Structure formats: structure tokens, C-alpha cells
């Protein structure tokens, strides 16, 4: 069982890490979240019944992220009203800030991180992981129609953000 688990899931380490970075918006927390996700996946490996390994893993990562944010922020993240969020202090004051203004990459990442949930995770799963509506619906536990409208909202917010910063 050992090698099999690693063969199936370690190839998705980047995907897991990326999702954790974008949802948690905290680099140090993302490290711990990804590690905890892999341990949880290993322990639940007995319940894995085939299907897309990346989707299965990302659903666990997502749960870990929300467990983490619940424990850190309490109920604060519950009310999302589809407006762009200012980045949490640890991001804008952290060691990454100096880099943010420098590169196009950091600018795009910051732009995504300003999106509120659940639009942020939906956009990341679609644009960066290139998952289908069906896969995203399974991971986030909502109907495909909701995935589509969340994507529309996320993209709308992003294009508006871009125009304002131009």
C-alpha cells in the first residue's frame, strides 16, 4: 500500500500546495495544511474508491484549509458578500510584499487572492488546475450551475479590479 499511495498522490503536490496557498493566503499555514492533507489522505486511503486522484486529494486540502481558517479566524470568513477583499495583514506586511509590486506573477497572484471565497477557490480550480465544472462541483459540493455562476462572478470581479488598477 505504501508505494502505491505515494505514486498516486505525490504527483499532485503542486496542485495541493497551490490550492492551499490561494485559499489560506498564508505561506506558512499552507505548508502545514498540505502536510496535514497528505496525512489525512493516507489515513483515509482505504475509503478511496478509484476516480480522479487529484480531485479526491484537493477535496481534502480544501477541508483542511477551512478547518484551519475556522480555527484561526473564527466565524469571520463566513459572510462573503462578493466584494473584493483587502489582503490580510500577514500578506501585505509579510516578506512577500516587496516582491508583489515587482513582478507580473506576483501581481496576478495578489489579484486572485483579493477575490472573496467561494469565488477564489472556484477560479483557482478552473484556471490554474484546469478542472471541469463537474470536477469542481464534486470538490466544492455544489451544483454545476453554481460553479458556472461563481466563475462568472469571479471573472467579473477580476476584470473590474484590473480596470481600476490600470
Amino acid at each position, binding site marked *: 500500500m505504501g508505494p502505491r499511495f505515494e505514486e498516486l498522490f505525490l504527483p499532485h*503536490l503542486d496542485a495541493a500546495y497551490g490550492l492551499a496557498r490561494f485559499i489560506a493566503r498564508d505561506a*506558512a499555514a499552507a505548508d502545514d495544511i*498540505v*502536510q*496535514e492533507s497528505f*496525512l489525512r489522505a493516507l489515513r483515509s486511503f482505504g475509503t478511496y474508491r478509484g476516480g480522479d486522484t487529484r480531485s479526491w486529494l484537493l477535496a481534502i486540502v480544501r477541508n483542511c484549509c477551512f478547518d484551519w481558517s475556522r480555527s484561526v479566524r473564527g466565524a469571520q470568513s463566513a459572510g462573503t458578500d462578493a466584494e473584493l477583499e483587502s489582503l490580510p495583514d500577514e500578506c501585505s506586511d509579510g516578506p512577500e510584499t516587496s516582491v508583489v509590486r515587482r513582478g507580473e506573477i506576483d501581481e*496576478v497572484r495578489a489579484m486572485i487572492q483579493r477575490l472573496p471565497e467561494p469565488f477564489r477557490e472556484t477560479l483557482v480550480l478552473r*484556471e490554474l488546475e484546469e478542472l471541469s465544472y463537474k470536477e469542481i462541483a464534486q470538490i466544492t459540493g455544489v451544483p454545476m450551475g453554481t460553479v*458556472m455562476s461563481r466563475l462568472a462572478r469571479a471573472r467579473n470581479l477580476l476584470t473590474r479590479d484590473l480596470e481600476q488598477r490600470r
Partner: protein
Amino acid sequence: MSACADHELLLQGYLDGELDAANTMTFEAHLQTCVACSAELERLAALRRRIRAPGVRYEVPEQLRARIEGALRREMVDDRRTDSEERGRIPGGRVSSAGRPARRVFVPWVLSGAVAALAACLAFVMFVRLPGITISDELVASHVRSLQVTHITDVLTSDQHVVKPWFAGKVAFSPPVYELSDAGFPLVGGRLDYVGGKTVSAIVYRRRQHVINLFVWPASSAEIAAVPSRRDGYNLVGWRQGGLQFWAVSDVDPLELQRFRGLFMAHAGDAARDGE
């Protein structure tokens, strides 16, 4: 500024390649005539190019990759250790054992993972106990499992005086263990197993190339009388003696299994007469 209202979702679906052929054709026809929608499509395509530019998607730092691979290896090695031992040793669970100190904020949500794992275990137990899955099914499943795993026994010895004390403290009853090699049933060893929602002792014997698992637990009046049966090619023979329920499971001939029962019961009778 944006797509016309009744086409906004279609536009998303088109951009994402999620429309069926008919809707794709309809929407492409609409794009020919609608300036707003084609401008919006171009805007979204540009946005996608920026997001999908190389480097935006995170790559895991090498240090973290090594840390996680190490944690997985440790978890696999630790698998045999029980969770309670693990949690008793390290407050807050496994993140603490993973190569660098966990921050305090992690304790609650890591514990919630432990709770989830416990729930999964309970769900599994409940599944095993679903109506229709009989004790016989479970016994055969345990027998087959014991043949598949590399260690069929937790204590490997042909000495009955080693096997019997081994069970002491592990189960709340004292299963009788007899050496039957003179009669062609050498003792191989013993292990703990889980049948019918409780921990039972399994005493392992051999008959030529065949393995016989003898499951033992305290008899209860709720259990039906032990009728010899056959399931998936395995034979089961059960009996009750000295307040204990016995089930022998093997792929040996049913008559051999009956003989095994006779031998075992005779030894138990001798032991009782010897005033043990």
C-alpha cells in the same frame, strides 16, 4: 463592459469548453452579431492568459516536498502503533511529529481531523455490522485476511505455554491453547482479531499445507447454536465449551475440521479432569 445579461453564463460555458455542440453553435452565431459579448469574450480570454502565464501556479518548495515525504514515510511505519498511543505521546497529534514544531493554532483543527478519522472508523464498524453480514461471513473474511497479510500471527510459536500467556491482558478471557501436533495439527501461534464488534483471540493451527484459524470469545446467549457450514469454499465448525464460543475456519476437508474439534474438546475435557 460585459456580456448581454441572458448570455453571461453561456459565455462562461463557451470559454470553458463546457457547452454541448448545439449550444456552442448557437452561441457562436450570437457572437457574430453581439459586440458586447465578443468584447467580453476577448476580455476574459486576456484575463485567462494572464492567470495561466507560466509561474503563476505555485510550485511546492523542495524543502516542503521532502518534509511531506518524510512525514508520509513515518506515518506508514507508525501504522502499526495505535492512534491512542500516538496521541498520548504527543499532545496535538501528528503535525507535532512531522519535523518541525506545530504552532498552537493548529491543535484544534488537527484534532478535528482525528475526530473525523474516528468517525470514519465508526462508520466502518457500523458497515461491518450491517444486517445480512453474518458472523460466518466475518469469520471467513478474517480467515482470508489472515492468509493475505504477511504475519498471520502476532505471536509465532508452537509452544502452547507461550501462546496462552500472550493473550493475558490483551483479551478479557483466557482462551485454552493445546498442542495438537501429535494428531497432525501443529500449533503455529496466535493473534488478536476483530469479529462481531469485539476483540477475539485467534489461535492458528496447521493441517499439512492448510491453515486453521480457531476464533475464541466468551459465549453469549444471544448467539445461535454453532452449526457447521460452508462459505466461499471455506468450512466452519463451531462449538461451545467452558463458557467460550469457538469457531474453526479453514479450507481443509469438513471431516478433518470435525476431527480437529473432537481433539480440541477432548483436550479441554482432560484439562478439566486434571483439576486445572
